[in-house]
């Protein structure tokens, strides 16, 4: 398992994460990321990491649980 962390102050609402993994990320009315889940099964890790790396302001990290 891994955990996702979001830096809400850094988030600019560019929404690349939502396009990359819409089961994990959403954006609220103010354009700030919402984590739909925080623990990521190993099988999904690469895909979610890819979505995190597509954040233009590096607001997302995936860490070992």
């Amino acid at each position, binding site marked *: 398992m891994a955990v996702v962390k979001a830096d809400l102050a850094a988030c*600019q*609402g560019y*929404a*690349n994460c939502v*396009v990359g993994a*819409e089961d994990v990320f959403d954006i609220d009315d103010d354009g700030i990321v919402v984590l739909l889940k925080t623990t990521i099964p190993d099988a999904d890790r*690469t895909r979610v990491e*890819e979505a995190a790396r597509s954040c*233009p302001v590096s607001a997302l990290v995936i860490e070992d649980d």
Partner: protein
Amino acid sequence: MARTVIVGASVGGVRTAQALRAAGYPGEIALIGDEDVPPYDKPPLSKALLAGTATLDSVGLLTAEAAAAAGIELVLGSPATRLDRKQHQVLLADGTAEPYDALVIATGARPRPSPWGTPRGVHVVRTLADARALAAALRAGGPLVVVGAGFIGAEVAATALGLGLDDVTVVDPMSVPLSRVLNPEVATIFGTLHAERGVSARFGVGVTDIREIPAGLEVGLDDGTVLPAATVVVGIGAVPNDDWLADSGIATEDGVLCDRFCRSVSDPHVWAVGDVSRWWHPGHGQTMRLEHWTNAVEQAVVVAHNITHPHELRSHAPVEYVWSDQYDWKIQLVGRTGGELAHVRVDGTNPHRSFAVLYSDESDRFVGALVVNWPKALITCRRVLTKTATEPAPVGQVHTLVENARPPARAAS
């Protein structure tokens, strides 16, 4: 051991290296960059870095430690000058030869040079050094003249105003800003935005010359006006850095010509990502070259996959996405916009600053959108375009979805 050499160490190159590791690439990876600073990101150069609210650290893409940990060899400070395909090696200016099995070209683009010369005080914005030099010049005060009302020009004007300059002019030969990506009726909204914020706009007039005078600079316009300037920024587009391949036999045509897999049409061992890549977009049925951050990142993932999975090649068929932050506005474009496409405007909660413009083709199918200050509408449009890439949705249907994405009006606080 297999070895991938990536030339160009900004977002396209760095993300390719990281995606190769994520895809389990077992070989060596060398990432070559001509600048002697660690890889950094470009979008902040006309925004937060210029404004002084970001630093080199905060715009960094890959530290030496992170590179070492990922097994990425960073080779910085010397440009690649030649590709020798017979010997399978890239030659650097300092004489080093870098052998490869797979080569990824990620050399990006550079500003289209000023046709009016570059006397002292004339700037472009592409590198960290450019942004630092411009930031220092702006700190000394105005007047500032920005030539070119595309994304970068508009962002520089907005940032300069935020820094306290009160004499900022944007000049563009087209009658509206952002004319490459928006139709005039919609683009004019951004002309009004500049005017409301206090930037003088001189649209529909061209620059004839830039002269050095004892007090600074003078910008001559083709309607006879002369604008005094302490600093001039020329933001008139970019050209791909593909000239170093000139004698390599790699086909270029305003970018490295690639197939749908982002592989050079001339050599199956050579790939291109980011601003330098002109690849065949299978969905659009034409070659294209995008200068968008998100494209570089998505293309990097595709190329890394293709290098590691030669028997399961993936096409690169993205939904275009680019953002621009001007003043306190977030301007976002998805898919195809502007030109001859039909458009319909949908107002957000505060129509003066939040709205979406939906673009559709001759069969009323939704093909792209401009979204301003309205995150949920952006998500809706990106989702729909991603899911309907092969069979576009009726624009009326998307109109309803976007209407439903309007947040409830909030009482003024």
